[in-house]
């Protein structure tokens, strides 16, 4: 199977969490003998090539971050330029987000099913997973701890050609956190996580408190 992979993140490839996820995912995909070609929507110079690839490929996978409960505006701008296929092409998605619970991504997932249909393709599932915000904050083994889990999903997709299996559904993790877990994570938010964000801000040259009100 040959797969067209479109990274729908508006963030440049270098800093794209979705790209880091795809690095591992495609490593797993390649292990099954599948081949792929990958493009970045963030690079407008690639748009003509992506359109041509969309027209000639039958297995299309769009990977994207959740932006305000749906697809990012830039990805929508690109998709508006496509001509719907209306053939037997299959379309699947990798949907990732910062918020960790599965429930946070369901509204976006619902749209992706509709989107595949609108683009004249057969919808073959979405791999849904949150808790990915900090991928770009880390390097090396710390980053790999967050992304390596996608390699196994690449193998699964290579074997099945879709994200419809129970294994893919289970990959999402909890839909919501239990009350005790929310208390624990809430404490982490106010301590370790908050300090982590402050440290990142300092590294980025931020000179104001993160809750600063400029207007």
């Amino acid at each position, binding site marked *: 199977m040959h797969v067209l992979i479109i990274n729908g993140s508006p963030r440049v490839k270098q800093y794209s969490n979705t790209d880091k996820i795809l690095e591992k995912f495609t490593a797993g995909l390649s292990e099954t003998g599948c081949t792929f070609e990958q493009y970045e929507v963030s690079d407008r110079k690639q748009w003509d090539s992506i359109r041509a690839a969309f027209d000639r490929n039958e297995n299309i996978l769009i990977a994207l971050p959740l932006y*305000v409960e749906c697809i990012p505006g830039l990805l929508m701008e690109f998709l508006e330029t496509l001509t719907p296929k209306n053939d037997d092409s299959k379309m699947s998605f990798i949907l990732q987000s910062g918020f960790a619970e599965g429930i946070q991504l369901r509204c976006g997932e619902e749209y992706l099913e509709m989107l595949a249909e609108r683009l004249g393709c057969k919808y073959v599932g979405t791999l849904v997973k949150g808790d990915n915000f900090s991928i770009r904050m880390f390097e090396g083994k710390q980053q790999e701890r967050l992304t390596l889990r996608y390699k196994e999903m690449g193998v699964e997709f290579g074997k099945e050609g879709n994200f419809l299996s129970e294994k893919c559904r289970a990959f999402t993790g909890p839909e919501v956190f239990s009350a005790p877990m929310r208390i624990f994570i809430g404490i982490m938010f106010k301590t370790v996580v908050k300090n982590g964000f402050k440290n990142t801000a300092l590294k980025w040259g931020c000179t104001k408190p993160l809750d600063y009100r400029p207007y």
Partner: protein
Amino acid sequence: MILVLNTTTDREITEILRNDMNAKGITAEVVEAGELRMGNCIGCNHCWLKTPGECTVKDDFPEIFKKIVHADQLWVISDTALGFLDHKGKNIYDRLIPLATMYLCFKEGQMRHVMRYDRRTDIGIIYKGEADREYLKRWNERATLNFDCHSLGVFNTEELKEAVSCMY
């Protein structure tokens, strides 16, 4: 204050809307944004971690954002594409992110960002063209959860009077 942001280039919509608002004694600021330079959120996270509360994309949106911060209601008028808001309409929502801070909390059992300002801006949609209305309704309810505000509803351009009835 009510802010109406017309991301389409169709000024007839806002003309009719103005008449309907006048008839009800409602005042609003109407911004014709269809031909302004307003790009997409590029996901740089600077508005959270480098220049808190300020978008660093250099276009016409930051001036509109200042108005949104002080508005009680925001009405987004948008064309549609692929059953949803077109990219211009969606870009507005994506670029509301500086309303929230990087800090996190749980609200009604789900993770949320801590909001930056005390004021809340409720958001309604007026769409022109074909869209999945039921999905748009559900989506706007979810989207507004992210900004700790409420959905004012979703209306097509044939229902401007109904939209005005939700303005106060």
